[in-house]
């Protein structure tokens, strides 16, 4: 017995040792650096001091969407610093209170309630995950706190309260349906292609994408997909699906899935030496894809975007600012959308002060807004809470490892 106890403690020691050497290992992305802790230090000891405007941010700094969240966080921080440096509002400084939702809906609900009830925020920059948004928007809507979503793309989110008198949910991310419309506009109207194949994952994301693609093709262009193939998360290759595309002679492939599988798709293309024109949702622009497959991104791959570094001078200048401040631009589009999200809130505060309801109205009626993404000068109307519709989303492509306008 004595011996087995010794074994147990040895195993424990090993486990602790392994956990201990964690931070030194890897993390090439730097996304996790500080992750959850960032939230607590900034939130610590927060009491509502007069003279400070609390702006909440509930986003994932860990979990599968950590990169989106971290990039958005940096840009939001920068926007708030700029706002404060320019004098704030009536001498009041803005302050960011940020919590990590760990990409979990239940956690998201918890922290949003905390932001509203304890931290008394005047507005919230929303989540990275559609599921999290769906879970918590009820609370922001009921509390009358405006929320601007920088990353989550699920189509239904902004429409949930569209029929209420006042809808408090806004979005600066390209919503799914609009992404599909943009992709198909490119393929059918610009490239005049009619024989399309769809490759989607079997999660809610891919299933939703499939439904949207079929819908838009049928209703807008009276076309049907030539080939529909699916793959599962964690699939190790997509050769079989690609072979079917080749056999059917499709003119282009619409790819609807997340970054790790997008990487497998590109690898399989290379292996089969078959490079169909590929148009994907914005997940293809996730830097993870490039990390995983390197140069394979450069050939005939298009993805929906709202921001590229070369799209305008403002965009380039914004990119340079982020790089100057943080040393890298972790995820350019997420940074840009995060920046525009909080800028909308800050502009509204400049105009009408710190009452959440007034801020909401000001965001809805915002005009003359200069964003860094492809956002319009008047981004929202009462009926439309999407800053990016298929009119101002566009397709971008990789060139020498950089995402650019084609």
């Amino acid at each position, binding site marked *: 017995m004595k011996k087995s106890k010794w074994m147990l403690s040895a195993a424990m020691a090993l486990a602790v040792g392994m*956990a201990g050497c964690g931070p030194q290992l890897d993390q090439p992305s730097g996304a996790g650096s500080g992750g959850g802790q960032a939230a607590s230090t900034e939130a610590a000891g927060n009491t509502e001091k007069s003279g400070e405007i609390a702006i909440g941010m509930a986003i994932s700094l860990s979990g599968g969407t950590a990169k989106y969240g971290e990039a958005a966080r940096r840009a939001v921080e920068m926007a708030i610093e700029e706002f404060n440096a320019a004098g704030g509002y009536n001498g009041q400084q803005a302050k960011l209170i940020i919590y990590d939702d760990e990409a979990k809906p239940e956690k998201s609900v918890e922290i949003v309630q905390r932001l509203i009830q304890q931290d008394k925020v005047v507005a919230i920059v929303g989540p990275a995950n559609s599921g999290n948004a769906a879970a918590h928007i009820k609370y922001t809507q009921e509390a009358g706190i405006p929320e601007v979503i920088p990353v989550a793309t699920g189509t239904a989110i902004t429409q949930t309260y569209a029929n209420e008198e006042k809808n408090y949910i806004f979005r600066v991310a390209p919503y799914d349906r609009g992404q599909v419309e943009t992709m198909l506009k490119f393929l059918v109207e610009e490239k005049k292609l009619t024989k399309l194949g769809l490759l989607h994952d079997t999660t809610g994301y891919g299933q939703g994408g499939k439904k949207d693609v079929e819908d838009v093709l049928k209703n807008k262009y009276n076309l049907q997909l030539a080939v529909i193939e699916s793959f599962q998360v964690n699939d190790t290759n997509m050769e079989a699906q690609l*072979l079917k595309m080749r056999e059917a002679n499709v003119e282009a492939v619409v790819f609807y899935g997340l970054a790790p599988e997008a990487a497998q798709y590109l690898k399989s293309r290379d*292996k089969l030496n078959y490079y169909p024109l590929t148009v994907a949702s914005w997940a293809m622009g996730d830097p993870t894809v490039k990390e995983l497959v390197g140069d394979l991104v450069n050939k005939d791959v298009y993805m929906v975007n709202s921001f590229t570094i070369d799209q305008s001078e403002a965009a380039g200048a914004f990119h340079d600012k982020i790089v100057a401040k943080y040393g890298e631009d972790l995820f350019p589009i997420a940074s840009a959308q995060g920046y525009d999200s909080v800028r909308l809130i800050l502009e509204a505060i400049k105009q009408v002060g710190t009452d959440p309801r007034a801020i909401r109205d000001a965001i809805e009626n915002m005009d003359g807004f200069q964003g860094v993404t492809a956002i319009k000068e008047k981004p929202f109307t009462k009926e439309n809470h999407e800053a990016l519709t298929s009119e101002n989303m566009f397709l971008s492509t990789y060139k020498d490892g950089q995402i650019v306008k084609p």
Partner: protein
Amino acid sequence: MLQAVVSGLILGSIYAIIAQGYYITYITTRTLNFGQGDFLMVGALLGLTSLGAMTSAGMNAYLAILLTMLIVALAMGVLGWGLERTAIRPLQHVLSIGWILSTVAVSIMFRNLAMLIWGRNVLPFPSPFGDAVFRFAGVGITRHELFVAVSAIVIMVCLFFFLKKSLLGKALAAVAYNRDAASLMGINPRRLAVLAFALSSALAGIGGLLVGPITNTAFFMGATLGLKAFAAAIIGGLDNPLGILLGGLVLGVIEQVFSLFHSAYKDASAFVLILLVLIFMPQGLLGKKVKEKF
């Protein structure tokens, strides 16, 4: 079609390597490590870290991968030893099947630990052989995949000679055959049980190194692979190494060929195959038929 078969063979040989781990512990102790998949994941991530450290220190790529294999095999061997001592042996009372759950428990702990250490991101695992693709008659195959196929055969041959020809291997076989008689002959079955687990974990670790560049690496990568490997072992027959190789290959090829017709049912096809095999050949394709005498 040919491409699908080739890809299937490579996938299958990976399953087979992992499945040999089930075989070794099964014949010696009649227990299995149901967390084999997560041991594989730990091996892959450990390998990624040590390979990264060595290549960034400017070491020759081939030397680095050999050393990494050695390191991973050793580290995983130690983990396997720990597993046997903490999660299997204390639970081996007469008629106890607690080890089934305890191996799963250990594997879940590993998964969470790995998540803490390496994060939740999918990490790229660059193959030391580069990304070049060879083409024969329209079939694309990467150098790394060739390496995997060759390694699978080499490992199988080594294992075969170890088990059939070496004294230690013979001792393992003796324990498997008759534990009591073996201990009367001066063989320590407990030591050999530890050896079996260490060996099986080391195999899982090497399997992880081999699959890493193909599947990419993340803390959750082990679950499906472990299950598929288990399926391969069952299809081929748990007590026949050649059967396991065959089972793995059959499984891999069926999966890939099936997804040519309908990709959504790819995984289902593998498990339908298990049902069929178990119904018609309960001992597996090459398993020994044992007549129970009462």
